[in-house]
């Protein structure tokens, strides 16, 4: 029973983390492998605002989301501007950039128990004999809302459709009047904001841990690969598959193996069906 509950929680957690990444990489085709760094930064920024500057919680959250969004926008111009279209270089550059940021934070000493975010609401409820913090309910709610938002955004708003158009065929998108650079920068900005939303929702469940940043990237990548990078339903399905597998493995094999699950999943999917479960259009280019 608790397997079911924690599995669900875990899955939503993954979905939360994955939406931001999916938006930039899967849907817009802009590789942002500094995602983990942004995730952690978002959380740290809120912490700094609360503890050092004394802002109220809600305000800090809003400020942080906006700031990280701006940061993402700027990130594009600094890192990716000259690399558009060379996906591999984008990956290397953003990945190193992200690594640099994370290691810098570690060096500056941002780790330890005092770096924690308070939950939105204290307390827990019992369901089926298992105590669940209220925070997790928030997480589920926000997670579901985020996924729905992602779906509607990419299918029904002009900007969202622009994102998708860009990843499918950039040249055509440009001829249709979509400003490729600005759109890509916005994709990065949105992705960063979503990452921050995810981080402030999830981090109260534990402490702010630098390593979690790196893990977040792997989680997001795994969910994207398994479900198909450009498909929102794919994100949902993949989150659940991976979320439950992770719980399962943790219970029966020990938590050391959980990362193994994710990494193997990435490898397995890439070897067998690179487009992912629901991914479509990239398949034709996969081979020759």
């Amino acid at each position, binding site marked *: 029973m608790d397997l079911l509950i924690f599995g669900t929680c875990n899955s939503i957690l993954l979905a939360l983390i994955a939406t931001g990444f999916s938006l930039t990489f899967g849907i817009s085709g802009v*590789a942002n492998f500094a995602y983990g760094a942004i995730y952690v930064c978002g959380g740290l920024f809120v912490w700094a605002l609360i503890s050092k500057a004394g802002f109220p919680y809600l305000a800090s959250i809003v400020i942080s989301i906006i700031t990280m969004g701006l940061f993402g926008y700027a990130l594009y111009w600094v*890192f990716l501007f*000259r*690399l558009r279209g060379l*996906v*591999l*270089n984008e*990956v*290397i*550059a953003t*990945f*190193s*950039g992200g*690594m*640099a940021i994370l*290691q*810098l934070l*570690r*060096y500056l000493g941002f780790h330890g128990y005092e770096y924690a975010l308070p939950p939105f609401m204290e307390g827990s409820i019992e369901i089926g004999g298992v105590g669940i913090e209220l925070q997790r309910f928030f997480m589920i709610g926000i997670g579901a809302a985020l996924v729905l938002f992602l779906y509607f955004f990419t299918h029904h708003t002009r900007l969202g459709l622009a994102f998708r158009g860009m990843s499918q065929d950039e040249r055509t998108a440009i001829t249709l009047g979509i400003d490729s650079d600005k759109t890509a920068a916005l994709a990065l900005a949105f992705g960063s904001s979503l990452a921050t939303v995810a981080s402030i929702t999830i981090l109260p469940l534990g402490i702010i841990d630098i390593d979690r940043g790196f893990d977040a990237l*792997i989680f997001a*990548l795994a969910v994207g*690969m398994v479900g198909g990078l450009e498909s929102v339903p794919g994100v949902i399905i993949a989150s659940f598959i991976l979320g439950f597998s992770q719980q399962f493995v943790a219970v029966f*094999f*020990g938590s*050391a*193996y959980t*990362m*193994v699950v994710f*990494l*193997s999943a*990435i*490898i397995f999917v*890439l*070897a067998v069906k*690179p487009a992912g479960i629901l991914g479509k259009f990239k398949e034709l*280019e*996969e*081979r*020759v």
Partner: protein
Amino acid sequence: MTEPREGKYRKERIDRGIKARSDTVYIVSSPREIMYVLLPRVLPVIGLLALPLVLGEGYWGRVLFLCCIYALLALSWDFMASVGLISLGQAFFFGIGGYLAGAANLYLGLSPLFSIPIGALGGGAICTLLLAPVVRLRGIYFAMITLTFPLLVSRIIEATKILGGTHGLPGIAFFPNVYTAMYVAVPILIICMFVFRRIMNEDYGTVLQGIRDNDRTVMSSGINIYRYKIETIFISGVTAALAGALGTHYWRFVGLSSFSWDFTIVPLAGAILGGAGTFAGATLGIFILVPLSELLREFAGLRIVFYSLILAVCVIGLPEGIFHYLQRKYSQFERWVAV
């Protein structure tokens, strides 16, 4: 980049007189031209061979060995990149080679003379087998898989606690003495550089570059591109695993740290800084980066930041690499010409 002058001028690059002459067989006609061609090649080789004696057993001797190891890794990355396979996981080859050599030494009691080749060839074989199924993927997906392999293997070792688990395998035999270690590592590096360079100059190398440029065209010219990719992975894998085996015996230890991101990013940064595609450039990049980072030792925690930033900067701003730049300056000069 200097700004163009006023009026109609353009920049023109012309081969220096001596290069143009020495490109043909007439190079043997004058000592000056022979020197022009040989000097950049012979001098560094002699220098490298002399370094162990100069630096001795101390701290800088260790740095030299470290440079050799990283340089081998950079060469192996560069070779794979020459066929179009960008790897973000050299640490994988390194670690497997290291563990294999360490295990051969510790569990089978073999001396370094045997365990190193076993580590190199065995490591290369294992890694090639694991990567063979994914050669048909596009560049970025291949890169992502190489990214995950070192992580995966290190987690598995950590979880299953085989091969020493989190503690690793200590107490591995050392080389007969420090100078033997050096004079194994440095010549191997030099040989690898020359071998790789030679391979690329042959028709085999042209085929590899063709596969990198456009594999569809090469495939329709009757070449089994997958076979060539796999062969390239094997050759690179052996080189990197060799580095791992050498490292294991030098540090007398192998553990999870052998799979660390260090061993992927430093070769990558060095190769790109020095000039991807030229093996001498990769070596040059490493011999700049590693001593530099040793000098900045006080900022130990910032090491990865340092490498990552260099990598990012190079990828964004200087994709050509130092070596290409030097090469260009050495053999061509630029001048402004009226249009």
